[in-house]
């Protein structure tokens, strides 16, 4: 059951990324490029995605547990920390440079050719380095 749900969700996610055009780096970079030929598509994708997801979060209050058992995720943590900010800035830089983020890098793998493979390999390597970088970040003396 869990695996069937994971497959259905993955297939919907991949279809959505592909249909919305988010596997096209021009659309992503076009959205980030406010001073160039600005492309509003990404805002519609985000807006569209948030609607069913917001309903789902509401349903987690009504449903006792997930279909396949277990429990729903805990409430989000309220406080910000350095990891969140530094990590998001680094991610944003990479996202802007190539116009790819983790989901689309997998969804476009079958037609992305060599650039797609190079990006994915580098991303996986980066994810491998992350625990080390995280440890270093936590050891760094706070700025104030």
């Amino acid at each position, binding site marked *: 059951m869990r695996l069937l749900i*994971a497959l259905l969700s993955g297939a919907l996610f991949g279809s959505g990324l592909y249909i919305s055009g988010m596997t096209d780096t021009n659309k992503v970079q076009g959205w980030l490029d406010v001073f160039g030929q600005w492309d509003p598509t990404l805002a519609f994708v985000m807006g569209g995605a948030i609607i069913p997801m917001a309903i789902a979060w509401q349903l987690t209050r009504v449903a006792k547990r997930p279909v396949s058992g277990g429990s729903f*995720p805990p409430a989000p943590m309220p406080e910000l920390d350095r990891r969140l900010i530094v990590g998001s800035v680094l991610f944003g830089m990479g996202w802007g440079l190539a116009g790819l983020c983790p989901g689309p890098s997998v969804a476009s793998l079958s037609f992305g050719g060599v650039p797609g493979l190079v990006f994915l390999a580098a991303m996986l390597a980066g994810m491998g380095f992350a625990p080390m970088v995280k440890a270093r970040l936590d050891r760094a003396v706070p700025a104030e």
Partner: protein
Amino acid sequence: MQPEWIMGLIGGLLIGLAGAVFLLGNGRIMGASGIIGGLVDGSGHSDKWDRLIFLAGVFAAPMALMGFVGTPETNATDNIAVLIAAGLLVGVGTRIANGCTSGHGVCGISRLSFRGIIATVFYILAGGLTMVFFRHLLGVI
């Protein structure tokens, strides 16, 4: 122009539906970087088959749709140095921040998570500034 935002909206609804299925079905937050990253660093070992099957779906679905909708073209740069730098930054950044466009963006914002909203503001700002700097000032991308 018009068909593109309609396709964006339809695709977005499907992405949200995917997240809803994952949450209500398996009780998990659908974050691509977390699902992939857990396989890379071993933290997701206990449910690795969930993750692999999910990713197989993400990979295979566009192939099935090809020819019906969209253009199978990423228009990605062929500058290897840029691709490697971008991949490393995305890999390290999303794992340190514990989320990307799907986890913090779609799943976080939709439950009004403060961390998700702040993360999204910062990665969009960083992405926008990267475009200004590397496209308009340096002309690299």
